[in-house]
Each structure stands twice: as C-alpha cells, then as structure tokens.
C-alpha cells in the first residue's frame, strides 16, 4: 500500500501495485529513447503512418490527435473532390 506522510506520498516501496496505472503509463509514454527519422507506427487500427524527421512522438494521445486531424483533413478533401 502506498505510504502517505502528510501531503507527501511515497509509492512503490513494496508490491508492484503501489505504482499506479497512471505512473506506469506516464513513464512508458513519456520516457525513453525516441527514434527520430522515419518511424512507423500503427494506432487505433489505422494503417501505418510515417513520422517525419522533425517530429517527436510524445504520447499515444498526441499521435491519436494527429491521426484524427489527418483523417478529418482527408475527409474534407474527399468531400471537396466529390462535391
């Protein structure tokens, strides 16, 4: 169990479950080596996307926002063509 001393919480002293899901997600999504260059990722069932040289993948949420925006733009473009 996480130990709470006043407003200071010290987690992870014993069992693994002391570390919250948020702590874990925060670490795996925001820390670690970033491959710059043509990174291939697949998220949310969307086909592969290629992240350009200057783009850093910061989180799944960020990537999902990029995908959603790209899809929106593609739909708008298709609507203009067909309309």
């Amino acid at each position, binding site marked *: 169990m996480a*130990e709470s*001393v*006043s*407003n*200071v*919480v*010290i*987690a*992870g*002293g014993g069992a*693994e479950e002391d*570390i919250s*899901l948020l*702590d*874990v*997600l925060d*670490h*795996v*999504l*925001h*820390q*670690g*080596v*970033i*491959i710059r260059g043509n*990174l*291939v*990722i*697949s*998220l*949310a*069932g*969307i086909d*592969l996307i290629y992240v350009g040289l200057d783009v850093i*993948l*910061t989180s*799944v949420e960020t990537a999902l926002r990029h995908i959603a925006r790209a899809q929106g733009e593609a739909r708008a473009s298709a609507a203009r063509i067909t309309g």
Partner: protein
Amino acid sequence: MAVLAYCIAESAQGGSVPAAGVLGASIHLLRQSGLACLYSEWEEAPALSGAAVRASALAFHRVLQGAFAHGAIIPFRFPTILGTRGDLEAFVREHAAEYSGALARLKDKAQMDVRISFQRRAGATGTGAAYLRARQAERAKLAAAAREFRDAGSEQIEAWRERELADGLRCFLLANRAAVPELRAGFERVRIAPELTARVTGPWPAAEFVSEGPVEERA
C-alpha cells in the same frame, strides 16, 4: 515484419528474456555491437486501440521491469514500432557507442521521480502584474519543496534534473540501486507547504539520464 522495440541492455548482462510481451508476442533478442535489444515482431504492425493501448503499455512496462531487474537498461518510448528487424539493427549499430557509454555510466543506478504539484492554487486576479507575481510565488514554493527533497537525499542523490509542468514541477534523480531504501526513508521525513502535494515513485530505469546533457523541456 513489424518490430516493436522494448529496450537496450549490455549484451553481457545476465537474466532470461521475459516469456511474452505486448499482445502476448514472443520476445526476441537482437545482439549488435556489444548491446542486446529486446523486441517483438509481427507480420504486420499491431493495431493498438482503446483498451489494447492500456494493456499493451502495461505489458511493455512489465518487460522493461523484468529486464531492469537484471541491470541497467535504456528503454524505448512506447510504442516504437519499426518496419523491419534490419531497421532496429541499424539503429542500434548507429547509436552503439552512445548507448554503451550510457549503460556503463548507469550500471547499478536507478531513477526516482518526485512530482510536486499544487493541491489548490491561489488563483491570481486583477492585473497582469498580479498574475506574474502569483506565478513567481508559486515557482518559489515549488523550488523550495524540491530543495527539501534534494537536501533529504543529498548523500544518495548523484544527479538531479527538473522539468517544469503546467501544474507543478517534476524532479528526476539518479541514485545507486542499493541506496534507494535509504533515499525513500529520507523522503518520508520531508515536509512541504500545505498547498502542495508530492508523489515519489521508483525505482525506474534511468531514462532521463541516458544523455549527459541537461534535460530538455517537453511541455
């Protein structure tokens, strides 16, 4: 074959490869330039959506923790998926000197994180100058709290980096693995301003200390 990279370790590092990783895939070992890289591969890049993202991130974390239990590792950020094993091999080869140096430097080290944030904020009202003064006061409180932690662990902490957050301050500190219990015990005695809250987690792989330079700001 799409490849998901987990982490890099020294090739000579002991320990067995975890049985399964993200989406239950087998974990393979790529040896290159004195380094070992853990990865999984699929015929096509895996689709990670909804609950699968969370479950996959947790599976990824378990692989990292398993490898970290045997020694220093350099984790990849989740999800790093490359087109082929050859791409991963080329990446490791290209960065072999840098990562070998980092692993040697981080041998027997662990990272602890301290996140300090406001439980409640004063909420600046009025002029822009008043807002700036309130922000300055907040920064001073955060800095004072960080100093409390730093002082409490002064004998164990070997390196310290900070990153400002929208709601507070995040501190990363490097210590010997063996010193972590003592460090935690010292942190239990830390007292910070009542409007602040602090959460200490770790030990983690020392991802923030792979580079020797100052940590970059990532808002």
